[in-house]
């Protein structure tokens, strides 16, 4: 059973709800140590002055905010302290919006919320969010940092996903392809047929990280002292005209369905 990493209070209008916060992500990254190739000794990281190469002690390191390429303001420890937001356990919900107002590029890190005492209200809120098909915009301070997030219901449970900031997300308007490359009606029709021929429901269990699995096997084999064999080269495809490729693809899909 996972341990809650934080406890807080959802503040929705005049309503309060105690919750526990759990990471929704299980880190499965395979981590490596950096070693010196020659003697396989672990490496140490040193912080040095770029101009002289002299090592700098931790106490002498500062952070600087760049104002231009060659001008910066150095922040002293008491400056950094001023930047820490006031502590609070409140997760304030500022508004609810339809679920698809926010594009997925805003979502950063997901957390599950669990009830802290009042199970009835917890599941009632999740049910209400699902019924209205909305997400809540949340703000809170956790571990000395400010967060903005989206409160939503997933399979009857509450999740809180941190959001990226307005300055980080890039957006476009007005991409109009030049006439010469705008798709023809016939091509659009074929492409649509092709897309609908491989339409499916989202099923994440169909996808495994094969690379990670192979890397694990490689590590295990090497740990046992086995020899590793060489690998085949990549395959290449011959280019064809767009319409030809679409027709051939559709034919291939149909053939598969018959078989």
């Amino acid at each position: 059973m996972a341990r809650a990493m934080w406890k807080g209070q959802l503040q929705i209008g005049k309503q309060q709800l105690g919750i526990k916060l759990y990471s929704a992500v299980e880190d499965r990254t395979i981590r490596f140590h950096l070693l010196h190739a020659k003697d396989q000794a672990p490496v140490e990281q040193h912080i040095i002055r770029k101009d002289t190469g002299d090592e700098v002690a931790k106490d002498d390191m500062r952070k600087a905010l760049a104002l231009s390429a060659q001008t910066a303001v150095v922040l002293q420890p008491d400056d950094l302290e001023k930047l820490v937001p006031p502590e609070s356990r409140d997760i304030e919900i500022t508004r609810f919006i339809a679920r698809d107002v926010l594009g997925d590029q805003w979502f950063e890190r997901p957390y599950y919320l669990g009830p802290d005492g009042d199970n009835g209200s917890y599941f009632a809120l999740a049910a209400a969010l699902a019924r209205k098909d909305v997400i809540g915009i949340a703000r809170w301070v956790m571990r000395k940092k400010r967060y903005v997030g989206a409160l939503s219901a997933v399979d009857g449970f509450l999740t809180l996903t941190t959001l990226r900031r307005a300055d980080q997300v890039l957006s476009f308007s007005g991409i109009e392809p030049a006439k010469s490359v705008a798709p023809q009606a016939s091509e659009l029709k074929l492409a649509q047929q092709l897309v609908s021929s491989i339409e499916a429901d989202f099923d994440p269990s169909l996808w495994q990280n094969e690379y990670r699995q192979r890397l694990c096997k490689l590590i295990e084999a090497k740990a046992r002292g086995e020899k590793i064999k060489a690998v085949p080269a990549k395959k290449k495809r011959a280019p064809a005209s767009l319409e030809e490729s679409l027709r051939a693809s559709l034919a291939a899909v149909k053939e598969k369905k018959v078989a």
Partner: protein
Amino acid sequence: MPSRKRGHGADAPAQEAGARVRPLWTGTITFGLVSIPVELVTAVRPRQTAMKLVDKSGHALGREYHCSKDDKKLSQDELVRGYETDSGKMVVITDEEFASVAPEMSGDIELRNFVPIEQIPPIYFDRPYFLAPAGKSTKAYHLLTATMEKAGRVGIGSFVMRGHEYLVAIVADNGVLRADTLRYADEIRTPETMGLPKHGKPTASQVTQFVKIIDDLTRSELDLTELEDQEARTLEKLAQTKQKEDEDVIHRQGLEQAEGDEGGAKVIDLMAVLRKSLSKTAVVKTAGDSAPISLDERRAARGAPKRKTRKSSGKRKASR
């Protein structure tokens, strides 16, 4: 994985001068037998709270690796990666071996199926990247974009970049393709594995009470000031005050070379890259410069209303 960054550090000065931006990945999207050459660049900028590492008097600092045995300074070429097994044994994996477990997959993103975007729970989304067309002809690129936007579907596939295999949703948004990396199912915890209590049955009156509260607080738009980076604003103000009082202000050659406090992410001129590769008329901006996000606009931009109403609106000419 530092050794993968080798090529990166080498052309850093060129990047900062804005001369040439190297995409993070170059490859081909394939669906059926159609292939679309693309370049992948990040779609999110680092937060503006990212700072440089300096010493007390403002000299730029950097990182160096030293051997723990003989304290010799090591270049990237002298480093290898080792995996420590549970029994404490160190297994060295060479660059060639890393490459050997990622054959074939590295050059392609094969779209194996198309799914409705609303079926992917937000907790799956990890990092967004833009895909810019890279081939001589951008025709197939525009075709895939238009087709997916009309159908309200996203393509699902996987690819290998810098030693990791990524599951991605290829999303068409406003005429541009994005590759949004997704977490794998085994990276997502479930309420059961976390030990959350079983679904309680909330009483109808409790649900109604929350529905009422939600209705009161529901708005049709999201005001982007709510997503503003307050920490960055506070930091900016502090820096301005210090600059005015001429306190701790430093001017120094080579300052831009200093290591960043968050792994030293390089700020590249994304806008320029995308503008160049897509269309001269394209406007690229950060969300911070835009009007509030409204649902109607997003739906209109997609050109595809919700699935329920797609049939009835099918006769209308698509907005783009």
